[in-house]
């Protein structure tokens, strides 16, 4: 399975992984496996099933930020 990720989106997601994921962290993604930072970047670069899932998760968060959904949810936690 492979996708067709917009090159700018791909660059953004790889940059976010590169700059915010510590080297001693690993991502455990259910039965898909456990991934180091370099492995995640490789999957995004290859646009395979894992890479597409990572992109989807990053874009979900960015969408929540830009629509205000994220800040609204956090504001509710004060109520």
């Amino acid at each position, binding site marked *: 399975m492979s996708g067709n990720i917009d090159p700018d989106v791909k660059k953004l997601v790889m940059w976010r992984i590169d700059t915010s994921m*510590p080297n001693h*962290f690993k991502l455990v993604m259910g*039965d898909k496996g*456990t991934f180091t930072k370099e492995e995640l970047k490789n999957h995004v670069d290859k646009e395979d099933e894992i890479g597409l899932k990572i992109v989807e998760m*990053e874009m979900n968060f960015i969408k*929540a930020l830009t629509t205000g959904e994220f800040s609204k949810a956090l504001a509710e936690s004060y109520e």
Partner: protein
Amino acid sequence: MNNKILVTRPSYDDATSYCFYYAGLIIKEAENKGINVYDLKNPNLTQKSFAKVMEEKSPLFVFFNSHGDEKTVYGDKVEGEEEVLVQEGKNHHLLDSKLVYSRTCLSASSLGKACTGGCFIGYNMPFSFYVDDNWSTKPANDSTAKIFFEPSNIIASSIIKGNTASAAVNRSLAMSQKTILRLLKEKTEPGSMVCVRLLWNNMQATTIEGDREMKFE
């Protein structure tokens, strides 16, 4: 009162070994409350033993910790293959009228909808978490994984305390929100922001199907 719960917890890879440890905390909590716990783990975690406990003991609360997909919850690995415990269209009736928390990937999206008369809490995307590689052989000491498992465990903990399914999920979401706020205050700490993003995704993936007011009582 139906005072019985069934917990499945294989342990053969990173995902299942962390779930195994955190499910163990719920088992201790339940046993301290005098609840009868059927703890299905290797070598007893098979489809046959699962069906037997469901049919003969009829636990009201079923807590899955394993891998899954849209239509399936798996158990242990048998001869290198994940054994199917529950499959939509084959034996999902075993979960009818039960209160289920399925800490497995994706099973809420189809299997959860197929079960009737009860409540199914689960995920419609992979339940994901970060681990600290320095502690990956000792889940109890891994404070990174704890960020993700505490809001998950509180669902099971709230249920055995007698809260409704809906209240249990809300408590989980509230805990995640508070953790996100704390992490945002520590955003210069390594790893804080990746944890925020993943916690958000787990929150979005949490799904509840069926009777939201159902209780373990």
